């Protein structure tokens, strides 16, 4: 898949890579041209620039990387990491929500339940998956799948990638808030190991609902926040154009979250972001997930529940108080 969808802060990289392409085009028309040296120079310059840029991305730039359309999505991870994936559908109350996908599969040799948000990768699939913004049915399906995982003693792996739960009339009508609350509650009482990976955007309650896990991992340039930078800017600054400031103020990067003990591990991304090394990042995520699951094996159902509950009870508590 092409990665030629440059972000605004990658302009110089785009120019350099454009020049390389131009040279190659010229050389293919004229076989007497020797472009090897020039191409190598340009490529090394562009690689250095990319490395330097991505080493110091600011929170707003990370937000853009986290939302990059070519970043691997749920379906890509499933194709790469899960054998015998068998999607399961429906909440058994009202309908099926395509923004949250889930099912059974074999991950690194063992049977698991996988749940996650899917944003889609072209216009028709984006519409089908509602851009990864789930309805109550999605969360109720997640609860159903977690119930099943518990019944058959299967670990749960969740992949988080949503701007947030969908804000619409139908969603409210059918109890979006209650559905999210119940799903979070189910995560907390689950008697099997649960590992979550924030692969792109972790948007508010819509993310928490399936990310309240024993171990939460984050890709290096993914984000996890209480509200989108745009939403925060329009409420607190009364100006959506202040998204950059809001992104910085909210501390939504993987690095910030690790510092505040909200997550357990950062999974490094290839230079230039997950979309420039899709297979490498999916493999790294797979390795990190199996390691996290293995670290939980041997814990009883009660110990797993207690670990999760103690972890979340401590979030925001000053050490030493009751």
């Amino acid at each position, binding site marked *: 898949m092409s990665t030629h969808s440059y972000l605004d802060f990658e302009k110089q990289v785009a120019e350099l890579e454009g020049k390389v392409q131009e040279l190659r085009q010229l050389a293919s028309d004229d076989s007497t041209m020797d472009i090897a040296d020039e191409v190598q120079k340009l490529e090394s310059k562009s690689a250095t620039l990319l490395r330097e840029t991505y080493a110091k991305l600011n929170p707003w730039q990370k937000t853009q990387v986290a939302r990059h359309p070519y970043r691997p999505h749920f379906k890509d991870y499933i194709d790469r990491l899960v054998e015998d994936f068998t999607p399961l559908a429906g909440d058994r109350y009202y309908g099926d929500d395509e923004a949250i996908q889930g099912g059974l599969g074999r991950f690194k040799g063992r049977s698991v339940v996988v749940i996650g948000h899917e944003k889609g990768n072209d216009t028709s699939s984006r519409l089908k998956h509602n851009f990864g913004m789930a309805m109550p049915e999605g969360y109720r399906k997640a609860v159903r799948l977690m119930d099943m995982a518990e019944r058959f003693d299967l670990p749960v792996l969740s992949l988080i990638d949503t701007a947030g*739960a*969908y*804000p*619409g*009339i139908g*969603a*409210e*009508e*059918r*109890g*979006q*808030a*209650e559905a*999210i*609350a*119940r799903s*979070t*509650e189910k*995560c*907390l*009482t689950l008697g099997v190991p649960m590992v979550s990976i924030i692969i792109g955007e972790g948007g*508010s*309650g819509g993310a*928490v*609902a399936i990310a*309240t896990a024993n171990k939460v991992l984050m890709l290096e340039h993914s984000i*996890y*926040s*209480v*509200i989108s930078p745009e*939403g*925060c800017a329009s*409420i*607190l*600054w*009364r100006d959506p154009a202040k998204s950059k*400031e*809001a992104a910085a*103020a*909210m*501390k*939504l990067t993987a690095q*910030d*979250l690790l510092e*505040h003990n*909200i997550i357990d591990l950062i999974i490094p991304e290839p230079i230039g972001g997950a979309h420039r090394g899709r297979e490498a990042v999916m493999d790294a995520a797979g390795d990190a997930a199996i390691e996290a699951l293995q670290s939980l094996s041997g814990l009883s159902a009660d110990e797993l529940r207690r670990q999760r*509950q103690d972890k*979340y*009870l401590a*979030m*925001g*508590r*000053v050490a030493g*108080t*009751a």
Partner: protein
Amino acid sequence: MNWLTKIVRPKISTLWKKRDTAENLWHKCAQCGEMIFHRDLEAAQKVCPSCQHHMRLPARDRLQSLFDGGSYDEVEYPDVQIDPLNFKDEKKYTDRLKAARNKTGDKDAFIIAAGTLDAQSIVVALQNFEFMGGSLGMAAGEAIVRAADEAVTRKTPLILFAASGGARMQEGILSLMQLPRTTVAVQRLKDAGLPYLVVLTDPTTGGVTASYAMLGDIQIAEPGALVGFAGPRVIEQTIREKLPDGFQRAEYLKDHGMVDMVVHRHELRATLSRLVRLLMEKGMAAQITAPVSEPAQLPVTQVQTTLAVAANEDTDPRAEKDAAE
């Protein structure tokens, strides 16, 4: 550790005096325009006598009107780290916090109170919209955990009055983490077999509804209260159409099966009292070791049937419906 800080006794006379200023003598109902004399409005618990519009009730007025004799103990909750993200928008978070503390005299958006309701022990957690829109941050999370623990220790139900614009954005991800955290608190209450009653008041929106405020054993809403996950403005911007009348109001929630009942403020105390009595008596069933003299000769199955019928009567949905109307 003793968390009890102050015992609140009603001082009705000073309450009146404080507000006896000329400009505060008359209040105009925002819904019907009726001019209401302030004492009448206070006496009516801020419900418009002519159209029944429920206005926002100050936090401590609500507590006074709920507890026996208007008296209760306030329970302190632990301090949290102030502004760990060093957050600044147009104002510093620490300044906003200071202003809210000065305005309310409280340390954050929750008040925990313990006392009796018709001689039954209860713990109440009340979310104060006056304090930064009742926003859910670490302190509110701490308060809910504390209130649930207090209820578990005292073996009493927890009644939670929700009022909030949502998560406290100035605490970023730490405020989001209060969703699972408060859910754990509710879980502990449920593990202890104690009732958790939620009263949704105007307005309750955002992350608050996606956690503790929607997990009650019984969900009550005040008439007209706006309750929803996404705010109406956000929805309108997303779908680009006008929202239907009454959308996300208490009655709408009742119609869509999201709350058990919509209860007029004047009926609220009696309703809560009855629910507490019914739910706490249910716990007694397990303690019946020997059958009472009369059914002794009845076959066991019949005794069970009798108990089952009694339980059904106790939770007769028609009784709840009456209260709602």
